[in-house]
């Protein structure tokens, strides 16, 4: 076959060039989608947060006015304080429970294969389902409280979900129930990765179990602690469904979180500018946690 056949040559040429471009062509739709729907939308919301948008987007800039108003609104204060309480307790309690469950499960437990899925299944449920269950369990009229009364413990009282000072803590209970098994799974994976030889050596040197955990095992779990913290904190900041299902922000506005605030102000109260500014603050908070973490992960992989 003649190598100089022009038809064949240009055909082969085209195919080679196509092959060279194919990877980029295949990636292009996802890239375009990401640029428009994620980063373009972020830019748009950022822009709106500097405009006087009310019910509909407006393009008239008003400077930092929305942010100034945002931090004067009482409900935003409530939302931020609630987020502090909720995120703090949620992260700490989930981590402690998850860590102990993992350590205990790692002691050659009979029935581990039976227990582990039980600890983890709440992760498969929707927050709306979780919220529905806990809403009625904690409802003093039909749930735990009245059951205790019927069982003879007349003075038992647990009406936090109806108490505007305490309702936020009931959200913590449900959220911990949902995620602590997940933290357990992360710690368990970390524990299983620790070299048993090091532990045996330490034991021969006379280290007690407690010392081994404190000095050898826990320090080696640092990546798991970090991942747990990052994942839980970003879940806490995004929390929306669970609150809607359990208290719908109530009693009053006492269980509002930033995500509820954003939704209410944007779509119910027609204060889109303020809503947009609250969304920007949520994004910035998450970015402050996620960007350094992801950057470190990506750098490590290279």
């Amino acid at each position, binding site marked *: 076959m003649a190598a100089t056949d022009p038809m064949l040559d240009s055909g082969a040429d085209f195919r080679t060039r196509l092959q060279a471009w194919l990877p980029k062509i295949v990636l292009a739709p996802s890239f375009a*989608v990401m640029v428009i*729907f994620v980063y373009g939308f972020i830019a748009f919301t950022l822009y709106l947060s500097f405009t006087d948008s009310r019910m509909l987007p407006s393009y008239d800039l008003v400077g930092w006015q929305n942010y100034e108003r945002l931090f004067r609104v009482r409900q935003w204060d409530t939302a931020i304080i609630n987020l502090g309480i909720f995120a703090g307790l949620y992260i700490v309690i989930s981590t402690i429970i998850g860590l102990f469950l993992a350590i205990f499960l790692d002691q050659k437990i009979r029935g581990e294969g039976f227990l582990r899925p039980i600890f983890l299944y709440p992760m498969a449920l929707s927050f709306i389902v979780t919220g529905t269950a806990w809403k*009625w369990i904690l409802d003093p009229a*039909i749930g735990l409280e009245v059951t205790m009364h019927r069982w003879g413990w007349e003075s038992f009282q647990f009406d936090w979900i109806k108490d505007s000072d305490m309702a936020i803590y009931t959200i913590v209970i449900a959220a911990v129930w949902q995620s602590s098994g997940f933290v357990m799974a992360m710690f368990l994976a970390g524990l299983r990765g620790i070299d048993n030889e090091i532990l045996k050596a330490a034991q021969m040197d006379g280290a007690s179990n407690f010392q081994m955990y404190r000095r050898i095992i826990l320090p080696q779990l640092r990546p798991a602690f970090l991942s*747990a913290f990052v994942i839980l904190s970003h879940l806490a900041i995004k929390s929306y469904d669970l609150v809607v299902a359990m208290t719908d922000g109530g009693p009053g506005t006492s269980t509002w979180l930033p995500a509820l605030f954003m939704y209410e102000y944007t779509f119910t109260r027609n204060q889109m500018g303020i809503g947009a500014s609250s969304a920007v603050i949520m994004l910035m908070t998450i970015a402050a946690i996620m960007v350094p973490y992801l950057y470190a992960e990506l750098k490590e992989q290279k």
Partner: protein
Amino acid sequence: MAVASSDTAIRSSNVTRTFIYLFLLLFALFYLMPLVIMVLNSLKPLSEITSGGMIAMPREWTIEPWLSAWSTAQIGVEPTGLRPYFINSIAMAVPAVAISTVAGALNGYVLTKWHFRGATWIFGLLLFSCFIPFQIVLIPMARILGLLEIAGTTYGLILVHVVYGIGFSTLYFRNYYAAFPTELVRAAQIDGAGFFQIFWRIMLPSSGPIIAVCCIWQFTNIWNDFLFGASFASGDAAPMTVALNNLVNSSTGERPYNVHFAGAIMAAGPTLLVYIVAGRYFVRGLMAGSVKG
């Protein structure tokens, strides 16, 4: 029985082990309790619940609440039961899972086996997009869905879930393919195999586990989504989570708690089933999404 086997470095006394077992069992009860309460109360008449018997076995068993939740309960204004919304969720989740998984597989393949300048940057941007609070995209998304005339439809929700699902599906496949021997790809290239041939013949046949992980997680996330459903499809096209929330929070008069619980189990059913059948992949996906794969 309680003596730790010899291949572990941690030994503990019988007292400690008893304590450990108690602790673990206690927590098992804590995790199971809400599910058990939901199931039991969905099978008893309302009067047993309202008279203070929520934490008790049903005295009289009935499937009436299930029938009501499925086909006659008041959702919003219509007494349709949850059935149409269950179908909505299926119609939304299946295509969205399929499309985002295919896209994720191709992206992961390109990003790991066809290096080009900026690939890490693109992946980083995709990765961050997994974690954004979706409040930041709600307003423009509402506008775009309106412009495309798919606001308030299942098509709109499919688009939304594909768009925001691609980040995670790419993450799964990228981490999985990163461990796949590149030499095999290069060898196939030398033998004249093209881009899609390599993907089809070499990558895909060994991708079974990660496809399972990706499908399971996309399905769980999309099925369980509430924010997008409530924002973009609150009417007839509402997904199951939104309908359940309407059922629980809008009933007037005497609240049919038993129907609420039956509805909650229906909403939890598909993802719970996936978890029971494929728990192994579920845990793997959990890890891949948090600790690096």
